[in-house]
């Protein structure tokens, strides 16, 4: 991983080298890389000079106050947004050079859990969860769908329509949809926002399990308890957006 040193390091070359030595993961192919990336919705940039290399098999948390650009950062990571300046690489391809179909194919290797958990409201939950397989022409790989729904606690709701689900159920369904293809990387935006502690722990266990299988995990969250719990189970690193820049979080996490 490569990211911006904390501001406290200043221009101390030794400190910066040590920082890079700690966070740089060698001998692994980057899944997603951001180089000198900035993004602006208007004249004022929301993110600036963002550098990060997500290595395969790594586990990250992204935290920071609301409105600092966590969701924007995730959207940059899966190509929904293109950087104002700088370069975003997904699976070794510059997003700006990718055709729309290439981006779609790349997204089949990525699971994304949105904060707002959007679904096709007219289709049953099971169909929604299976959608990534369906659009990829892999509908015949649906054997484990009921087991997956049961695992996220939605076993009895396979035929339910998304608008009838609670916020927590929608988040669990979004998570199931994100992992059904066994993606190489999972990006989750506040995935436990509407979950109770028990369900958050189950979700964390799933993320840890996926990470141990070699999947790259990036979770944007406010939930410090979740982060602390994760750090006890996996070598998770914590990033923070501060002053429009991406930084490594302090040792308190």
């Amino acid at each position, binding site marked *: 991983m490569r990211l911006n040193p904390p501001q406290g390091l200043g221009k101390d070359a030794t400190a910066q080298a040590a920082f890079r030595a700690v966070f740089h993961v060698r001998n692994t192919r980057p899944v997603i890389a951001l180089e000198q990336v900035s993004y602006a919705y208007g004249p004022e940039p929301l993110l600036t000079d963002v550098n990060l290399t997500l290595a395969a098999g790594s586990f990250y948390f992204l935290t920071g106050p609301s409105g600092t650009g966590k969701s924007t950062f995730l959207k940059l990571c899966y190509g*929904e947004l293109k950087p104002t300046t700088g370069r975003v690489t997904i699976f070794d391809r510059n997003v700006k050079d990718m055709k*729309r*179909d290439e981006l779609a194919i790349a*997204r*089949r290797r990525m699971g994304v859990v*949105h904060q707002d958990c*959007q679904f096709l409201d007219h289709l049953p939950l099971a169909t929604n969860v299976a*959608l990534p397989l369906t659009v990829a022409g892999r509908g015949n790989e649906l054997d484990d769908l009921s087991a997956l729904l049961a695992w996220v606690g939605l076993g009895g709701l396979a035929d339910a329509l998304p608008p009838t689900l609670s916020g927590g159920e929608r988040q669990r369904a979004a998570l199931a949809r994100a992992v059904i293809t066994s993606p190489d990387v999972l990006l989750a935006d506040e995935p436990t926002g509407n979950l109770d502690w028990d369900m958050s722990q189950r979700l964390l266990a799933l993320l840890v399990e996926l990470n141990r299988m070699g999947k790259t995990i990036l979770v944007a969250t406010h939930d410090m308890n979740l982060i602390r719990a994760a750090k006890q189970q996996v070598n998770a690193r914590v990033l923070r957006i501060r002053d429009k820049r991406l930084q490594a979080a302090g040792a308190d996490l």
Partner: protein
Amino acid sequence: MARKDGPTDRIVPQTGHTAWLTSFTAGVMVFLAVFALALSLAAGRLAERWQEALSNTATIRIAAPPDQMEFQTQAVLNVLATTPGVAEARALTDDEQQKLLAPWFGADLPVEDLPLPRLIEVTSAGQGFDAEGLRQRLSAEAPGAVLDDHGRWRQPLVVAAGRLRLLGQVSILLIGGAMAAMITLAAHAALSANAQVIRVLRLVGARDAYIARAFVRRFTLRALLGAGLGAIFGMLAVALLPGAETEGGFLTGLGFQGIEWAYPLALPIAAAVVAYVATRLAAFNRLRGLP
């Protein structure tokens, strides 16, 4: 394309108003197109009939003093008898001339007492006769004879019928264009209404072609259904028009004859093709603007 509600179709929710709008538009447009087609075909037949009938006949009018009338009539008939391309020539009798004038002067007109010109009906054969050469010979043999080959009023009628046929063809094209525009608007409305569906599909890795296919299939099938009904009702309406009577004039000839009844059946296919192209263009155009 004909498979109904396959997996791809179901990813787009049923939207009642655009479905109804597309089918209704296609139906009405094809209904009108059936009439435009009938108009075009009838105008074509009319132009051919006028061209054929009028080009085969001519009239020679002899205006001469009474004492020379018989002589000049015979001279004209003699000239016509030796003119290549003339199949038949005969002088109209007094009774026939009286019938021609009756609508204007009444049945009791004393034709024999009036200095009316003598009319000679000429029927041409094959490629017809050389009108200019005939005029020169007539002026030498019968100075009072004037040849009217109907060209003065035949040509405008034939041109008018041709224009009418062109109008029908242009109408079909305009109807097709209007249908394409309406279906494009309906497709855009459906794409806008389904922005969330499209976003979710893009999020899970659906390619543009996959998303577009769902809309294209639905709109094409709707257009085909509406156009089929429009064609059936249009053909029924044309069939119920009054028949083509000899004295009925142009309008009663509006319709299809023989194999022409098969032509309207191609209109629903054309409508489906228009819908397919319009929706596909609209879908890809809209999708290109989305992340």
